[in-house]
């Protein structure tokens, strides 16, 4: 098995490859600062992203991170445990790199005639690097650093359209809320450190298990809550979601896609890892008086409800998608809410699946908005009326994304959403509070059905306005959209491996 011969640190290859790509882009930029050779820049970025995707997939296939008992290579620890490369890490690296690749390809057209090309791509790739690193980070330190590595480029990216007030406003709000949240996050870290005296996740768990943190219950609990706050910001969960609608609406559409899919995923990997590894259920209950799942039950319900309800009556398509992505964050949170001392890999696995599928369908949806902005047809539902008559393929793809987001077969979103539902119900057999979550899921997906189909209606049913000049077919955007659509469809029949990987990753973490 090739993975053997490689040195330990090579297990981080996906992240490293991304970092390398970022540096290469800087290099290109410094060689020809004025260069707007889109093909070269986008190409490099895409190659880098795809390369790291390939590596991540290869590692997974080769069984890196798979427990040796299952005939895998076992979890690989780097820098004595600051980083771990397990199934979860690789899984999320795959998600991140997929999204990165898609949006980089899409940006090829979106940034046409735009300055700061090189900066744009390098920032994107650096942010991706951060996310990939987050996936593997196993200590609050590394997590925080990787998180910032993700956030800082994102702030800049959102605001990159310097002469567009929307973009700037979005950047500002994103940044301010981001700063606030990271401050809270760090403070949370400090409190946890105070309570336990260590920052590496598994050591925290040990300390808690040994009762080293007894007596610091309140301190630890407050710390955990603050960590939760920082994570909620990344995953755009209530109440830390306020930045999301504006940021997504104002930012360039590919960046919105990037943030709402990859960045969200990064947030979730932290959540999964930190809470499962550092604060194992049951033991943590003895210290702080309750299991943190309660917090997630509340967050999940509130988040999905706020997201979907706010989305229902939006007029601006991008903003609707923004709110819907908040709603989906709520769905994914079920993965944590449903956990319990004795397992719950099903529900968490479902959450992982959802994040992967979401990586395709949501990215695709935002990329369609990017396409619409590229066409300059406008931002509201009315402006989208009857686009199908002029661009059937793209609109078909968009219909696929929307129906998939609504969780209707034969698209990937169906399985992930209904598995989440299933998982929630299974968890409910142990923890009745989950019934409320399941109920909320029903209500919300009914509502989401309404506003998603509203957009389908605009695209396919409404008649196009008389005055609309014919629309171009930008290669990159189309390619990205079509790929996303195809993946969204074929992932349904091919769900076996996905489910396997997800549940495997979850299992490794939960038990």
């Amino acid at each position: 098995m090739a993975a053997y011969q490689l040195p330990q640190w090579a297990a981080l290859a996906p992240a490293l490859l991304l970092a390398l790509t970022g540096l290469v882009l800087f290099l290109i930029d410094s060689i020809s600062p004025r260069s707007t050779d889109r093909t070269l820049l986008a190409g490099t970025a895409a190659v880098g992203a795809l390369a790291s995707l390939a590596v991540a997939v290869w590692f997974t296939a080769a069984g890196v991170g798979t427990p040796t008992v299952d005939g895998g290579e076992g979890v690989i620890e780097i820098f004595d445990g600051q980083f771990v490369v397990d199934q979860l890490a690789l899984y999320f690296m795959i998600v991140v790199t997929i999204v990165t690749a898609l949006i980089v390809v899409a940006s090829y057209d979106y940034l046409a005639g735009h300055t700061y090309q090189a900066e744009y791509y390098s920032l994107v790739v650096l942010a991706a690097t951060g996310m990939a690193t987050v996936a593997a980070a196993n200590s609050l330190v590394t997590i925080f650093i990787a998180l910032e590595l993700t956030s800082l480029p994102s702030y800049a990216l959102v605001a990159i359209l310097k002469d567009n007030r929307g973009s700037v406003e979005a950047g500002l709000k994103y940044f301010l809320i981001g700063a606030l949240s990271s401050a809270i996050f760090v403070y949370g870290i400090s409190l946890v450190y105070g309570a336990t005296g260590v920052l590496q996740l598994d050591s925290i768990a040990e300390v808690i298990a040994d009762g080293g943190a007894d007596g610091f219950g309140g301190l630890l609990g407050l710390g955990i809550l603050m960590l939760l706050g920082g994570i909620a910001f990344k995953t755009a969960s209530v109440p830390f979601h306020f930045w999301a609608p504006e940021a997504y609406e104002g930012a360039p559409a590919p960046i919105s896609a990037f943030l709402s899919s990859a960045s969200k995923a990064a947030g979730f990997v932290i959540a999964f890892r930190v809470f499962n590894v550092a604060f194992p259920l049951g033991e943590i209950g003895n210290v702080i008086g309750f299991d943190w799942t309660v917090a997630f039950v509340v967050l999940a319900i509130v988040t999905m409800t706020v997201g979907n309800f706010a989305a229902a009556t939006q007029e601006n398509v991008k903003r609707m998608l923004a709110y819907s992505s908040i709603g989906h964050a709520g769905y994914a949170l079920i993965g944590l809410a449903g956990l319990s001392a004795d397992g719950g890999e099903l529900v968490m696995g479902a959450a992982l699946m959802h994040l992967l599928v979401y990586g395709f369908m949501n990215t695709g949806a935002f990329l369609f908005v990017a396409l619409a902005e590229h066409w300059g047809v406008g931002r509201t539902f009315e402006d989208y009326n009857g686009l199908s008559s002029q661009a059937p393929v793209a609109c078909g793809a968009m219909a696929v994304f929307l129906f998939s987001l609504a969780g209707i077969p034969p698209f990937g979103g169906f399985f992930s959403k209904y598995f989440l539902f299933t998982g929630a119900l299974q968890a409910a057999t142990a923890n009745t509070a989950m019934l409320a979550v399941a109920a909320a899921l029903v209500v919300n997906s009914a509502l989401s059905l309404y506003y998603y189909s509203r957009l389908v209606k605009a695209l396919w049913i409404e008649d196009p306005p008389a005055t609309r000049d014919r629309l171009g077919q930008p290669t990159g955007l189309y390619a990205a959209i079509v790929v996303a659509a195809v993946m969204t469809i074929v992932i349904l029949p091919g769900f076996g491996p996905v489910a396997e990987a997800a549940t495997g990753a979850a299992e490794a973490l939960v038990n």
Partner: protein
Amino acid sequence: MMIEALIAVALIGALVTFVAPNRVAGKLAFAISLVPAALSLWMFTAFDGSGNALLDGDLAFESHLEWIQLGEYSIEWFVGLDGISLPLVVMTTILCSLAILSSWTPIDSRESQFYGLVLFIEANLIGVFSALDFFVWFIFWEAVLIPMYLLIGVWGGPDRKYAAIKFFVYTNVASLVMFGAFIALVFGLGDAVTSFAMPEIADAMVNGGVQSSVFGIDPGTFTALVFIAMFLGFAVKVPVVPFHTWLPDAHVQAPTPASVLLAGVLLKMGTYALLRFNFTMFPEQVETFAVPIAAIAVISVIYGAMLALAQTDLKRIVAYSSVSSMGYVILGLIAYTQFGVGGATFQMVSHGLISGLMFMSVGVIYNVTHTRSVEEMSGLADRMPIAVGILVAGAFGYMGLPLMSGFHGEFTIFFGAFQADFAYAPLFTALAMFGIVIVAGYLLFALQRTVFGPYHLETDYDVGRAPLHDVAPMFVLLALIIALGVAPELIFDMITNAVDPILNGGDL
């Protein structure tokens, strides 16, 4: 692999049609749709199954394929046919071909997309009736929504957007409720089941059922709650009063072929699911809730018929009468006797054909008159004798005229329900039977006003004879209706053979 072949042909055909040029789309789609029709007819002759698919009967055309391992539960591609599902599959394929034929005239825009969607629906409908793993079944069940939503929304009438979204959301919410209830049930069964295969679950339910309490609810209550939730979930699809209001809107707005499929097949999905899940897996609860359900059935019959009586739009009339007819089916199911359940299943097929015929006739009338209002036309028989002749025949079929399939369906249902076990069964039956008077009332009224009397038309069109490809499908349906009416045992035997295990707790 026959079933896969059916579905594959329809799916591929859908894709091909979707990219085909509009001119040829209609003919192409029709040609393609003949393949599944022929195949299913062959399957009908080659059918060698016996017993009930869920209660370890011998399936015909069975096939398994490992798919997904979800925690300790496995999901597999599992399809097969028994005496209940086969007739429905055949009906579906035939009805789809005819629906395509009948849409040559009315559909004059975005043809390739239209016919593509129809074929896509066909694929899913076949899947619904043949899938035996819950998730596979549920995929097909839900996948029907999208094409129907678009068919109504894009090619529908003036108020189509409202109707489409109402249909879409309403039925999907129902599915969610049903899904949740069923999954909860599966978990409630605990280690008894290790997959979502319906036969396994049905077996666990019939022998033993839920043992330990779930969600802190004791097993009995829990099972009852699940039963109710699933019944409500399906009741929307059927639809049963008071969950029927999406139906008239959808029907009135939908284009003719969509109405044909909606009334002909989609409603049967609801009753079929009721039979497969509620009435197969919950024998005890069926007895417990017999009286209320029977009451609901009677209300659906009478109330639906009364509503039909009040309408002046031909399509609305037929739509509400479908509600009424579905009430008969529910009555037959709840009777829980061989004739009752068998008759209900027979009635599913029969009503599929007859309502299809009715909607086609109304469609043909609409094509030439461009109105569906009873007030705005009269004496059409003067101008289009053949089409009207078929319409009249269909109407009498709807009234349950002997020697037409409707009579056998209704009579067996009544007969089966009259001797049912639950309290006042004869009374309920007698009440429900009054539907046959009301149905005659509103249909004859409509006929008198529209096709008889001196020729007159409010809209400024002149009525001529309908083209062959409009009339031909109606002839085919009429032939089938009479065939099933004269020789019901064509399908009734295999149906009862598949129904018996349900009533005898699993054994043939």
